[in-house]
């Protein structure tokens, strides 16, 4: 990690000694606030982007501009909740995946097309991207990092 270490202030220390449950709730509240900000922007400006993604852009911009110190994430509770949520990321896709059963009729007709599209398109685009990227980065890379 090369990111700047934030100066530990008294407020940070107090937050750090608070228990994990409190930190998680506080971090989750902040993530939801970013999500709400994102949803508001998409509605107000009629943007084609999903609200949570815009919330992610806001949080990322905040981190780039101010670091992860006191301004954006005092006490690191947002990072704590974020890393916790991302540990169970695969689980969160399961209900959406089960939604496949809603499309029995469509899938009975189109399952072969669906499989063909997913396999061919995925392999093709992965190969093209990898080959171009290999040419672009093979020389510039420093593996010392």
């Amino acid at each position: 990690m090369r990111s700047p270490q934030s100066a530990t202030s008294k407020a940070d220390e107090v937050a750090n000694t608070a228990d994990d449950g409190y930190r998680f709730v506080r971090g989750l509240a902040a993530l939801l606030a970013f999500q709400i900000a994102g949803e508001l922007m998409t509605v107000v400006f009629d943007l084609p982007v999903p609200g949570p993604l815009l919330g992610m852009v806001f949080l990322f911009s905040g981190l780039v501009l101010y670091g992860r110190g006191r301004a954006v994430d005092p006490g690191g509770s947002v990072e704590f909740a974020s890393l916790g949520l991302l540990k169970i990321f695969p689980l969160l896709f399961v209900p959406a995946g089960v939604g496949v059963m809603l499309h029995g009729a469509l899938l009975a007709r189109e399952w072969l097309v669906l499989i063909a599209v997913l396999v061919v398109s995925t392999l093709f685009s992965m190969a093209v991207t990898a080959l171009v990227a290999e040419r672009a980065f093979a020389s510039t890379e420093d593996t010392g990092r």
Partner: protein
Amino acid sequence: MDALKTLWVYLSASPLLMLAGTLGAYVLASTVFLRLQNPPLLNPILVSVVLLVGLLRLTGTEFEAYFEGAQFIHFLLGPATVALAFPLYRQLYLLRRYWLGILGVIALGTCVGTLSAIGITYILSSSMELLLSVAPKSVTTPVAMGISEKIGGIPSLTGSAVVLTGIVGAAVGPSLFRWCRVTSPIAKGLAMGTTAHGIGTARLMEDDVQSGAFSGLAMAISAVLLAFLLPTVLAVLELT
């Protein structure tokens, strides 16, 4: 038997059973996955979905009733998407160093993946619903489902297509890189993250943290790019 039936009627009317069922299926699928040393085709998401769909069919439960319980898990996709800002921030130094090349490659990969999906579906099928639902297949699920909703696809079908895409990419990617003689960790990561999002990223992380980091970066950037570009491109192609 009557008592059992009463109990079933009581439990199936509350979200409790389906919430517990979703967690249980995932725990079971993850345990099997780890025991068998991570075989790519037994992806825990895929196995959980198969188990749950089987269970719902067997008990004659409607998806709506299932979702009453599962929505609590599904809801967390929103804040988890916001949370992706942290892994992205951790790659900031790489982004600063190679940003132009990285952006170019990710933009290329996102376009090739999306346009090839649209093209193949257009040739093989007449279903516009299917086309709009698979078009955003290569970006992370919450974003893909959001895009699908915006452009008139079926979000839940998109969710399934995205998960399958990730499983295909994660399973075949490492061999594909060997065949194509791609050795640079940056190239592997960008290709995987752009085409197979979070599921592919998790696969790369197992072998090599550096390419996994690039994969996470590519997944985030391609999601942002596609969310802005796809509705515009579809409008130009006059498909919506």
